């Protein structure tokens, strides 16, 4: 149910038909108090040896987006291209936010095989096994959350959030975000982190100015 609501939010539009204002929008910080670590490897008791050392730094980044976007945001745009690399048995970056139509490349930069796949409703795909130096990709043609995995390494996972409007931003490591070029008006801002929309806040963008807001996720 939560996933359906999120997909609706990613695709929603408001009836407002107003001009975008350069130099105006929403900015602030998504403050995530309890950071999540990467998924642990399953205990492989049947293996004759331990796997290699991997980076287990906590995930610091989230996504901030408008629950409903002004209709002008849905004007047709050139489809973009994005990359999610596979390095040291991790997807890098762990989180992508793209617009509908974006082609996402999944190069393999490890020495072993990987097999990227997703069984998400927004995009169901399986790129098969491919080796180091090779890349395969997929076009994200529906809004929603695409959970990405590797069929060979069960601890590898990542998220691709697919929007049909441009008013979203991935936070930096300090949680800062910026949604520029927004028409003035009232919006609902959503803070998303590791699979869930964790906070929702109303925000008003003044004419010709920035709305500043900090979202705290306990």
């Amino acid at each position, binding site marked *: 149910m939560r996933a359906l609501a999120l997909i609706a939010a990613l695709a929603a539009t408001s009836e407002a038909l107003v001009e975008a204002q350069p130099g105006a929008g929403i900015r602030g910080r998504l403050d995530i108090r309890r950071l999540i670590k990467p998924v642990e490897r399953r205990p492989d008791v049947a293996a004759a040896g331990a796997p290699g050392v991997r980076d287990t730094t906590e995930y610091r980044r989230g996504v901030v987006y408008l629950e409903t976007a002004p209709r002008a945001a849905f004007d047709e745009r050139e489809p973009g291209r994005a990359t999610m690399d596979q390095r040291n048995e991790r997807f890098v970056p762990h989180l992508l936010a793209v617009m509908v139509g974006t082609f996402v490349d999944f190069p393999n930069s490890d020495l072993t095989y990987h097999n990227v796949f997703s*069984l998400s409703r927004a995009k169901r795909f399986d790129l098969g096994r491919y080796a180091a130096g090779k890349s395969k990709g997929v076009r994200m043609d529906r809004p929603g959350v695409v959970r990405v995995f590797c069929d060979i390494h069960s601890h590898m996972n990542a998220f691709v959030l697919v929007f049909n409007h441009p008013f979203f931003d991935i936070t930096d490591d300090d949680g800062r975000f910026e949604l520029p070029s927004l028409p003035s008006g009232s919006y609902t801002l959503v803070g998303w982190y590791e699979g869930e929309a964790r906070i929702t806040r109303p925000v008003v963008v003044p004419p010709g100015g920035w709305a500043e807001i900090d979202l705290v996720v306990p």
Partner: protein
Amino acid sequence: MRSVAAALWIACVAAWPAAAQSLPEEPISIAGGHVIVGAEITATIAPDDPGFFNYTSYEFSALRNLRMGVSAELRANDHVQLLTEVRLDQGRVLEAYGLFVRVRPWPARRFDIQLGRIPPTFGAMTRTVYGSSNMLIGQPLAYQYLLSLRSDALPATNDDLLRMRGRGWLSNFPVGNTAAAPGLPIVNTSRWDTGVQAHGITGKFEWTGSVSAGSLSDPRFRDNNSRRHYAGRVVARPTPALAFGTSASRGAWLNRNIDDAIAGINSGDRSRQIAYGGDVEYSAGPVLIRGEAIRSTWTLPPIATLRLTEPLVATSVLVEGRYKIAPGLYVAARGDCVDFSRITGAQGPSTWEARTWRVESGVGYSVTRNIQVKGSWQRNDRNGGRIRRDSIFSGQVLYWF
């Protein structure tokens, strides 16, 4: 038993769409990542297997089982870990399948030493006992099919051995333990051996060596003959798409009670199981193909009436493949046979065990990443025993985290 299994299976299938929302998807991390717990639950259902083609050394069919396995890794530090796996089969057979300490002397180097009840060293298909590592439902013959040989009993004559052709699920011999009991597979992955294992990866080569208590066919928690089992395996990966493996094993396979039964003969010196295996794996895109050949010999102690000039030989060959036809959906097939050397009985020469073939094909569908449903059809044939062929449809639901 059948109705209970069927009810459980149906309940699992019916409940999972709803339950999947709240079931763990990832290993559970406790104590700041020092303890990691994972699990695999497999419900497998099939009609009767009157030819006992799929019976394991625990006296149940691999196609009719409810298995719950919990694995845990306790990370003391970068050098030392304790790993264990506890399994409950049939809702009643509970066993610490694996329990060992893993020592990594240099954390940055891929070299480990494992001590305790260790995973098998020999062969490429040892993981097929895990539902999630098995593209089908049945297991390869070499790893599961029970031969008539037993570690605690011996035939007194060639005809004693020939009488048991195709009856490995419950064989009996006149020397040693005369009660009927299951025989041994070529490679036993139903239980693990106890000993020490070293493993390393150097460039494109991966190697494993072990010294343990039992034998390839009869891994032991407690030693039963004061003889060591030596096993080794090397895998070369010239490219990520291709892997070549070779395995070898040598161990004493008879129990010391045979010593008592054969006065004056030290059976340990003569009762060796020696096995060699070669395997290859190729994968690319949606395709995965594996093949393996194993040759195992068993030397029997000299009993005057047992006229064997050569060791008993079993040769196994299998090929299996999987093709992903859509995201989450694949088809798979395996062809498998075990052949045996010939001995001479009162009726003339014959293979000492019944030659056996198995063909299995199936389909797997992932409901979610960690919930999978499989269906398969299996055909078994052998040239001996009371029931010489059967066809079995089976279904499996699998959940892991």
